């Protein structure tokens, strides 16, 4: 079992103001996982992510969104209406004590509320502003509206996703948001390094489309070879068998390279002797005859449970793995032994298994924390850290700013 206590926190001491919607929430989460203090600054009615499904059963309310619960795990929450003058001033006070501001507003929104990058720099001269939008801060599509599927479409991943006989198929959850969020996180790391070495802040302009367009060599293949990639289900472009194959109780993802092919034939002792022809050593030829090859391989995989087939392949050095459902994955002994999931207790949702950090530091993992309730840390942050008085807090509340 892996030690999940006392893992080194890499970046404790840095503070992030997370003004993002669900588009950038995964960036805030990753920064939190790295040890930074991430304060979610929500409008008084709550971040829109709190209204997004899936919900915990019986909790279709602003504390019940599981998307919010995962993407905001470990963050603190304060409420603040930055469109009100009093709220804007309070945000600037927060900025003075922050290292990073993360935002996903439409380009120009912050400037229109007198919160431009320069206005923020006036409060914190080395500030790192990380903006994340569908297409970037300027350009012909800068004001285009984005959703996850729009990001995947415009970035080129959707066109190659799914079965060729069907409509292109979006991946689960909101992968284009997550992927852009990862790039934004890398941008923040670079900007912090720059701040340490050059003494300046930075404004990171992250684009969901630009992040997605790095996927799967789609752009490079066309530019370098004039090749337009198309949908092919799970069939690999250049190799066979490299696909999903049916087993007794499900499916296995199998990838048999040139080196693995003779090993597969050896393990598969009653294979069709026609497959022994040395010409089949050539992966490209096997790919050209993928239907022929795949049908024969299926006759073999069909005899096994997917877990047993995977085990047999791995014992022989062939990288097969079962196609798991999410709960299969959670129950896998390897994942359990690594302590990837641990229980957290949330005041509304109860106790449940949640992923901890997806990386280890010196062999130790930091386990998960619950997401904050709306405004849970108003008092702690505004009174305790900014030093506001009870009267000031009352005024803010009366004006609907917090």
């Amino acid at each position, binding site marked *: 079992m892996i030690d999940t206590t006392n893992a080194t926190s890499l970046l404790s001491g840095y503070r992030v103001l997370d003004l993002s919607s669900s588009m950038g929430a995964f960036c805030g989460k990753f920064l939190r996982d790295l040890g930074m203090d991430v304060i979610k600054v929500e409008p008084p009615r709550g971040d829109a992510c709190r209204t997004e499904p899936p919900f915990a059963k019986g909790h279709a309310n602003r504390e019940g969104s599981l998307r919010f619960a995962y993407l905001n795990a470990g963050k603190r929450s304060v409420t603040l209406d930055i469109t009100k003058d009093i709220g804007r001033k309070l945000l600037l006070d927060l900025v003075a004590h922050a290292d990073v501001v993360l935002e996903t507003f439409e380009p120009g929104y912050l400037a229109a509320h007198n919160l431009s990058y320069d206005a923020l720099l006036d409060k914190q001269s080395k500030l790192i502003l990380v903006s994340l939008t569908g297409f970037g801060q300027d350009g012909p599509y800068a004001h285009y509206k984005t959703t996850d599927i729009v990001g995947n479409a415009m970035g080129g991943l959707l066109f190659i996703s799914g079965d060729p006989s069907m409509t292109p198929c979006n991946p689960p959850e909101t992968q284009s948001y997550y992927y852009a969020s990862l790039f934004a996180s890398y941008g923040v790391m670079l900007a912090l390094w720059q701040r340490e070495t050059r003494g300046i802040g930075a404004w990171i302009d992250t684009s969901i489309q630009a992040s997605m367009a790095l996927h799967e060599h789609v752009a*490079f293949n066309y530019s370098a070879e004039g090749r337009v990639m198309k949908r092919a289900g799970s069939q690999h472009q250049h190799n066979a068998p490299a696909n999903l194959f049916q087993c007794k109780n499900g499916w296995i*993802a199998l990838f048999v390279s040139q080196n693995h092919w003779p090993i597969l034939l050896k393990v598969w002792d009653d294979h069709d002797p026609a497959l022994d022809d040395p010409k089949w050593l050539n992966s490209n030829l096997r790919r050209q005859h993928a239907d022929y090859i795949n049908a024969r391989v299926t006759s073999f995989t069909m005899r096994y449970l997917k877990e047993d087939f995977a085990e047999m392949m791995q014992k022989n050095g062939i990288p097969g793995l079962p196609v798991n459902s999410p709960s299969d994955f959670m129950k896998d002994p390897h994942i359990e032994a690594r302590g990837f999931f641990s229980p957290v207790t949330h005041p509304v949702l109860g106790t449940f298994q949640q992923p901890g950090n*997806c990386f280890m530091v010196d062999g130790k993992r930091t386990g998960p924390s619950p997401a904050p309730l709306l405004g849970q840390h108003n008092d702690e942050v505004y009174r305790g850290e900014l030093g506001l008085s009870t009267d000031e807090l009352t005024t803010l509340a009366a004006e609907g700013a917090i």
Partner: protein
Amino acid sequence: MGPTNDILTGVRILAFTTGYAGPFAGRLLASYGAEVIKVESKKGGLDTFRHYGQHQDIDAAPRFIECNLGVRSLALNLKHPIGARLIRELAGKSDAVLQNFRPRVLDKLGLGDEDLRKSNPKLVIVKLPGFGTEGPKSSYGTWGFNLTAFSGITYLWNHPEQDRPIGSQGVYPDHLGFVMGPTMMVAALLHSRRSGKGVTIDIAQIEGTAAVLGTTYLESSVNGDDPKPKGNHYARAAPHGCYRCQGEERWCVISVRDDAEWRSFCRVIGREELVSDRRFANLAARLAHRSDLDAIVQQWTQAQTAETVMTKCQSAGVPAGVVQTGADLLKDAQLRHRNYFSPFTDSLIGPFEIPRSGFLFRRMNEEPLKLPNRFGADNERILGELLGYDKATIEQWRKGEVLT
């Protein structure tokens, strides 16, 4: 003129990488100024992508070039005792190590974490093993494709109610790994700079992959459900999906999230009477009559180009986007505006353009990307200038199969 984006200038990273995720992580570090020294050997230690495709020249495999832009090359036989010794010396002159070999491959060569830290206690080590360094399946062979399957993503990446999984031909876990890798690398370097101590970071690619399915796992653990594939459906928007347009394999996605967007959309398609149609009165009603709605949308989209559909919808504030191909990306006006593609006019594989990064630094200058150095091109500089060996010694090692 602002500062340039070569932020990591002065950071030296030794890279033991092969395939997609590890090398590309190195490329993303080199793109921002790090000196990334990739260590390979013709004695059984070449990056597998050097043989990808039909090229005989190991420097001319397109996919190798794509993943290793800006990276330097040290040809060194790690299985030779002198080779391993030179790496330990080099670790003393470096800030970090990046590696995606299987667990314990480097340890067996005398290049484990502690061996490397002897000459440099501040050394940062970032590893990207498929299944992690520990655990009953840590020796398993993994691949982006089968990690996707193991995580649950393949199962969910499908239209509803299908009798078989579809998934993707792609290697999403590699894409996650090659951004998480450099992110963790710089985070660890920041930590090491502050604390004066090195750290070892392990990013099991399977867990990096699972990190983008966390909401689904919560659905399973909180609600006790096993979530099913949703395809292009989304419970907070209708119409929401991918619609066929004029021409072969031309598609546009459209997301209508609320009543305001719905009213705009009805105007765009010239069907304002639908605004008062009770089947579509609000989001719940539109979701309930999704198939009627999809038929109406499809009828409109199929009569025009995907570009027209996108432009008309977006002009009215309705989220929409062309399902772009590789060819579309290269001529995309927005990506061009961002100077997204770095051009190469002269390379071993001819001219090409390549995506840079998901973000740019505003008010800063972007350095152009560089080609990978040829195999072994940096041997003399590294061993001579950096480690101080004379030409005769280097020549002797070259003949003695150390530098190969």
